[in-house]
């Protein structure tokens, strides 16, 4: 296990390093000149002024030198100052991160509970009307893009019925839950369908295996079989898929944030890209990639704990 852990950690760092360079270069290569924005207005767009601004922000140095400078500062936990807000990037992130994390956590809770629940239900009641209803309902849900869901939910439950607030992220636990319910639901809808499908499929496969047949033949109650043999064996792919979907959500909240007027990481990133705010765009992207890699690494670590077969494999390799 310690060897495996070390290997995973090394992989994590190597991926992060590679990703950081790609992010840096990509943001740098984006069309448009940040100096135009930094110069502060068209009346000042003289070549001399632009050159001075470029020098001031080290934009005139070769890409690798800039990357080195950035990496060095990052390692010292200094993410720089935003071009746009002139505030510390770390402060901007700290202010917006809780909203996005709460949103993703809430959405994850929703899609895991409802998605796995629906999947189990469909698998247990395979080939009945329940199964068809779940499959049909989730197909419909999967085909609705999150921004459409957001607009529909807002107009029905926010504007018409007035049950939920339509903007902002709320204060305190109750306030946050109240504010985030509709956004989290819009975000979870697509994922919910995916997870229920994966759950249903994995359960069906597990249910068809020999040991389940054997258990059933030996007269163990059906409920017990589903819980101890079918679900347990199906858990691997379900957890992996849940982890991947959740990790993907970290980068996909922007649409929902905009529709609900919430200032989170996603809208910060889009604003930063539009204004060529390099330090913010790079930091947010790095954070998203780190989050993604971290979640998938955790899934890798958890997987053997759930499935003895994988654990055995890990030990022998």
């Amino acid at each position, binding site marked *: 296990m310690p060897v495996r852990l070390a290997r995973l950690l090394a992989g994590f760092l190597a991926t992060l390093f590679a990703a950081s360079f790609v992010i840096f270069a990509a943001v740098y290569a984006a069309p448009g000149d940040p100096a135009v924005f930094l110069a502060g207005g068209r009346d000042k767009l003289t070549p001399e002024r632009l050159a001075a601004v470029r020098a001031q922000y080290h934009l005139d140095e070769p890409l690798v030198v800039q990357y080195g400078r950035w990496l060095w500062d990052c390692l010292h936990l200094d993410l720089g100052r935003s071009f746009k807000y*002139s505030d510390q990037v770390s402060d901007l992130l700290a202010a917006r991160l809780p909203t996005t994390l709460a949103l993703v956590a809430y959405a994850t809770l929703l899609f895991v509970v409802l998605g796995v629940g629906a999947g189990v239900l469909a698998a247990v009641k395979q080939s009945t009307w329940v199964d068809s209803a779940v499959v049909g309902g989730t197909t419909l849900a999967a085909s609705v893009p999150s921004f459409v869901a957001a607009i529909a939910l807002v107009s029905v439950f926010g504007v018409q019925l007035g049950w939920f607030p339509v903007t902002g992220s709320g204060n305190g636990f109750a306030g946050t839950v109240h504010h985030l319910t509709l956004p989290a639901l819009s975000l979870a809808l697509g994922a919910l369908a995916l997870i229920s499908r994966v759950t249903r499929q994995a359960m069906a496969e597990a249910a068809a295996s020999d040991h389940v047949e054997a258990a059933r033949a030996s007269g163990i109650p059906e409920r017990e079989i589903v819980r101890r043999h079918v679900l347990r064996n199906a858990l691997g792919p379900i957890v992996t898929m849940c982890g991947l979907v959740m990790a993907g959500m970290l980068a996909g909240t922007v649409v929902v944030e905009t529709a609900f007027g919430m200032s989170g990481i996603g809208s910060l990133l889009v604003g930063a890209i539009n204004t060529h705010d390099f330090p913010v765009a790079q930091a947010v992207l790095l954070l998203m990639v780190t989050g993604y890699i971290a979640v998938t690494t955790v899934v890798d670590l958890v997987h053997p704990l759930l499935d003895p077969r994988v654990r055995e494999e890990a030990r022998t390799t």
Partner: protein
Amino acid sequence: MTTYKRRAVTAGLAAAGLLTTVGCSGADTAATGGAPADAAKLKLTATTPAAQGAVAKVNWLLEDEPDSLDLDTQGTSAGRVVLTNVCERLYQLQPDMTIKPFLAEKAATPDDRTLVLTVRDGVTFHDGSALTADDVLWSLKRHADPDMEQSDEFPNVASMEKTGADEITIRFKKPDALFTKALAGDAGIVWNKEQVEKAGEDFGTPGQTDACSGPYALTGWKSGDSITIRAYDGYWGEKPLTQEVVFRWAADSALVNALKTGAADGTFAESPNTASALRGVKGLTQYYGLSTATLDLIPTERGGLKDPKIRKALSLALDRAGIAKSGYGGFVEPWASPVGSGSWGYAKTEFTAAQKELAATSPASPDADDIAEAKRLIKEAGAPTEPIVIGTDATQGRTVVANAVRAALQRIGLKGTIKTVPTAQFEEFYSDPQARAEIDVLVADWYISKSDPMGFYDNGLSDSSNNWVGFKDATYDEKVRQALGTLDDDERATLAIDVQKLFADAAVWIPVAQVPSVLVLDDELTGAPASQAYLYYPWAAGLGAKKG
């Protein structure tokens, strides 16, 4: 970005370039709900009826989070809407778009090149310290620093000195008619030197205090969440009726929904689509105010529109009334000059008459004579062989304008193609000649911060970076320079009208419509100005309950 400035968020999408589809689908769906307005019947007012009673708290919406609350380093509309209640200027822009001395209690001009300001006595900053002539001088010098946003207001200033205990004397290299108007804008803010220096690099960022003397003090800025201002107890002037204002921000449909559900009490809507979506909503009232903003076509020197005759022909054939109706729900008014009527801070009668005359070159709806004249001009100039490329982004209004331009070109026998780019890239057309090299005309919007048309017409000078068609006219240049140096309002108005005519004759820009400022307010509130003065006037101080 001081004298002339694009309306940064008219597109309403400053923060959502990737989201054009999302943002628009929300706003557009909503927009179809409201009844269209009739621009000709929109009553443009300076202010709303006076308030009668106090209000404890008002929730206000901005279209974006302010970049910074230091307007010297980062001046945006969102920042101004907040800070104008917190910070005061040496002059003050009034709701009717005139200006008057303010923190400068008195202003004297012993000669054309000298301005003597007497600093108002008894004013304290929000930290309790007294506002002094030293603070005024320090602030002016900060504004004039070449790195600061307002530095371009000071090119004619030869010296700024303290010449008495409460007296500042500014000397000019040559007379500057717009300087006092700049002092009613961001170049006239008086900062508390001690507080600004104490905050250092962090001044204007979340978590800092303000350094001003206005009716409200900044009490909190939670980055990414809200900004709160509260009435300042030690204020030297009249006490505000509203005790606290909480600012939040949202774009497009989120903004519309927040107002519809009462989550917010008001907003100054920068996008006509927002106004359109909120028209006739129960519980909300809309007021339309004077503004300097316009929609324009800005031709480039590439391609067919390089020829002034072709530009004039296009102007004659453009269906401005149609654009106003289908692109902007009737919230804009066909217009014949590149600045809105809010720029007429003086000589209103003369400017109104001159505007009517200009309508001959920029008709609201072209008639048969206009089309015939346009065709004649094209025949004279020779029709361009290449199609005319119209640059736009995907926002609803601009798309309609672009299509109207193409239709106008078609009507007079020319061909047009539309080039649509993302909003972020669209902004680069304004500043980058290389980006502009791919278009012949830009569907643009523009406003000036000063209530003086001469704040705009230097864009037509032969060496101006905003004169894209390479318009060169010695008479024009001479008249602009003369007007900018004429302190007498009536004399300057006469010159400005001449200048405006020359600009229109050459069709350096092609005006489309004037865009009023729109205030959307909860039914129970009143008292805020409706005009564009909301960017420079403490609008929240007058806001209160309708009933006492």
